[in-house]
């Protein structure tokens, strides 16, 4: 029992650190460990990963709020899209063939992966925000913001553009999490970073904040149908909360380029995994 407890705590710590740095929740790190390494049924792994996502979100949000890293208005506005998407997805569950969905979402991930690589190669990270013009909606909704980048040692002001596009992508992210039972943090980061052209750090921090709300929307289903196992989910969640508070501190000192370099292979892995899943292959 104690060995199991320690394993969950350490796994959680790791998932929390990586999840909070990238804004992806950590479910994708925990699920393979639970299913492949521990032989847990996938339905329990999904229930558990929902708790992990909430733990990452709450742990990371505490330090990001203190350091003014996340954009509260962007989060609130886009949460309408993710929660509506998540509820719709849950209601539509079973109506749309999952294989088609997996392939569609995997293509979206792979395309974003390609965009991220392009971004990494083409532009120096410091000039990333140089030429963005805010659009009418982002000014009306007061979405533009600024943060202090501890790695670049400067305050970065940023503009937000293409709000409708980002909103649509968030609907898709919510749908994906409702239909497929995934955290879809990667989609949220893509929506802000790739589509709305926010810098990567506030994108990741804001995604962390939003994920908790999206996950809470579906968490009660799992809580009350008994797929959240206390002896696994609770030590894992404890590890994650501490990991996320550590990770959100580390992230602020990382160069945006470094975060992108960690993000790209994870997107590639996620994309390929979902693509194969669409054809019935589980890796």
């Amino acid at each position, binding site marked *: *029992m*104690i060995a199991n*407890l320690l394993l969950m705590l350490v796994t959680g710590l790791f998932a929390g650190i990586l999840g909070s740095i990238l804004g992806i929740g950590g479910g994708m790190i925990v699920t393979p460990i639970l299913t492949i390494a521990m032989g847990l049924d996938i339905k329990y792994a999904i229930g558990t990963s929902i*708790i992990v996502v*909430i*733990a990452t*979100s*709450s*742990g990371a*949000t*505490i330090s990001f*709020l*203190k350091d*003014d890293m996340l954009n*509260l*208005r962007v989060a*609130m*506005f886009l*949460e*309408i899209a993710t*929660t*509506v998407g*998540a*509820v719709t997805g*849950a209601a539509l569950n079973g109506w749309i063939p999952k294989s088609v969905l997996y392939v569609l979402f995997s293509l979206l991930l792979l395309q974003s992966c390609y965009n991220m690589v392009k971004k990494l190669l083409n532009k120096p990270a410091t000039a990333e925000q140089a030429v963005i013009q805010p659009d009418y909606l982002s000014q009306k*909704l007061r979405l533009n913001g600024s943060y202090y980048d501890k790695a670049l040692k400067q305050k970065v002001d940023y503009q937000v553009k293409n709000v409708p596009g980002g909103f649509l992508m968030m609907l898709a992210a919510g749908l994906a999490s409702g239909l497929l039972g995934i955290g879809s943090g990667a989609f949220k980061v893509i929506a802000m970073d790739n589509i709305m052209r926010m810098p990567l750090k506030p994108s990741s921090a804001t995604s962390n*904040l939003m994920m*908790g*709300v999206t*996950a*809470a*929307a*579906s*968490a*009660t*289903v*799992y*809580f*009350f*149908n*008994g797929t*959240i*196992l*206390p*002896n696994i*989910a*609770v*030590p894992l*969640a*404890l590890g994650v*909360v501490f990991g996320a508070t550590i990770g959100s501190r580390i992230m602020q000192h990382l160069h945006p380029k470094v975060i992108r370099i960690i993000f790209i292979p994870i997107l590639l892995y996620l994309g390929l995994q979902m693509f194969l899943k669409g054809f019935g292959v589980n890796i």
Partner: protein
Amino acid sequence: MKKDEMCDIELLIGKILRVGVIVSVVVMVLGIVLMLVQGQGGYAAKTYPTTFAAIFRGVVQLKPYAVMMLGAFLLILTPVLRVVVSIYAFLKEKDYLYVAITTIVLIILAIAMIGGYFAGH
């Protein structure tokens, strides 16, 4: 000036959220300590309390799994707490557009959570 107000709001939300997280962490740790002391979860193999009534009964009897489930449930509530506090914070800042936006988020969230309660049963 506007920027400072926003910072205050974020600090307030951060503080309240921290209290929420600490409470759920304390309850979860307590559950684990109980499990280590008693050497078991307090329930028959592969069963867990999943209704409010069962969890409440178990917590009163200090059953480890019941206390751990309570901790997990409190953790699930922390994002909800964050949304509620945000409404109050935007209200204080007289940002009514965002009071409305955040209220919509809270309503959708509440519908989803209540729906989840009935779907789970």
